[in-house]
């Protein structure tokens, strides 16, 4: 299941996405990141680099 977890500590926010394949996670949080403020770091995980089944078929 696609999950977004957001942790707040004063003005510091951490957004973690789980269950997304490929670039879909970035699309899911792009607007949220823009509305919240300034990104200070952004790191992808192994799941991000996994090509989705749909992308392979295309």
């Amino acid at each position: 299941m696609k999950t977004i977890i957001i942790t707040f500590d004063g003005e510091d926010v951490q957004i973690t996405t789980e269950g997304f394949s490929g670039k879909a996670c970035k699309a899911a949080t792009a607007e949220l990141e823009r509305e919240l403020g300034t990104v200070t770091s952004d790191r992808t995980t192994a799941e991000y680099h996994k090509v989705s089944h749909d992308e392979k078929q295309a």
Partner: protein
Amino acid sequence: MSHIVDQQCTIKNLDALAAACARLGLDLRRDQKTHAWWGRFVGDSPGIEGRDPATYGTCDHAIGEIGKISQDGYNGNWEIGLCRRQDGSGYTLVYDNYGDAGRRLEQLAGKGLKKLIEEYGIEVATRRLRKQGYRVTRTTDAKGRAKLVCFG
């Protein structure tokens, strides 16, 4: 996990801020151009970086305790000022933390206004992700920090 983003929350959305204020017993006083504080800069602190002390107490909007009328000075009802940033990126929050009046603001909004900023971030994130169709649940993590878990 897919990706992890760290960011700094900036006050931009006044409607979300108003909702966050209400949860803390505060109200957003839109377009109020002054905020209550001690009343004059006495030089006992570093002051506000980048601002002339002659402009202290001025703002674009203010936040005060619900039901309390703005009043400067000792034993007053002080307020938080929202000052539009010159680069257009949002607002800076300013307030006087001196004495009982300053401590009252921190009781409500947190030391350094931490609680207010967190509630604002939570409101912005909740609105955005519900709009995207996520089911949003608020909880706390193992360190006691506020956390939203959103299922899509």
